[in-house]
């Protein structure tokens, strides 16, 4: 079983749609959960960062973590063409001990929002 699984898509939606992106994971030691956005041939850029279970909202973006199900989600409301990018989920364990912040990424979901 892969440590982090993410549906690579591609996902194509009309402008204004609600987008749902998901990842599952197997490592119960993961404590920090992130969503990165990556434009073509650029470095990942942090979008949302959550710790442990629960919801976090930032403008049109909502991140959800369900540690009991080992499942995380990113929701984008009122999607815009400028949201078109690859969205990567990433996770890491608590720092200290043998972990120094190593991120484990999902495959990335390619999202296109068309006008």
């Amino acid at each position, binding site marked *: 079983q892969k440590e982090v699984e993410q549906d690579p898509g591609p996902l194509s939606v009309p402008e204004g749609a609600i987008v749902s992106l998901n990842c599952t994971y197997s490592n119960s030691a993961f404590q920090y959960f992130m969503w990165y956005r990556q434009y073509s041939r650029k*470095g990942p850029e942090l979008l949302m960062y959550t710790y442990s279970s629960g919801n976090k909202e930032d403008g049109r973006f909502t991140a959800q973590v369900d540690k009991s199900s080992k499942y995380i989600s990113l929701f984008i409301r009122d999607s815009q063409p400028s949201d078109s990018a690859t969205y990567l989920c990433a996770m890491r364990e608590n720092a200290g001990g043998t972990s120094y912040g190593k991120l484990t990424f999902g495959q990335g979901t390619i999202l296109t929002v068309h006008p």
Partner: protein
Amino acid sequence: EPEVTQTPSHQVTQMGQEVILRCVPISNHLYFYWYRQILGQKVEFLVSFYNNEISEKSEIFDDQFSVERPDGSNFTLKIRSTKLEDSAMYFCASMRSAGGPIDEQFFGPGTRLTVL
């Protein structure tokens, strides 16, 4: 706004040659990382570096790879004898500290390495 920079943006090399990829992390950061992304695949962790030594490395990071922080600002990744399968985008990242829930890794724009 401070950012991680990487040079060169694109490096083309012949198989068996040595390459050095360079990164300048954000100045007050203490943890440094290299990741790679083979075209169409996921971003993979290579190595983390803290307090002037490797703190963690992946299976990919074998004896052909080495990292160095030669002068307190640059952070380099050396591949001693490149193979075709080393062709990938290499990302450097840095993080201020590694203890808190708000600590974020900032990524550079990447160096595209092409091995012919």
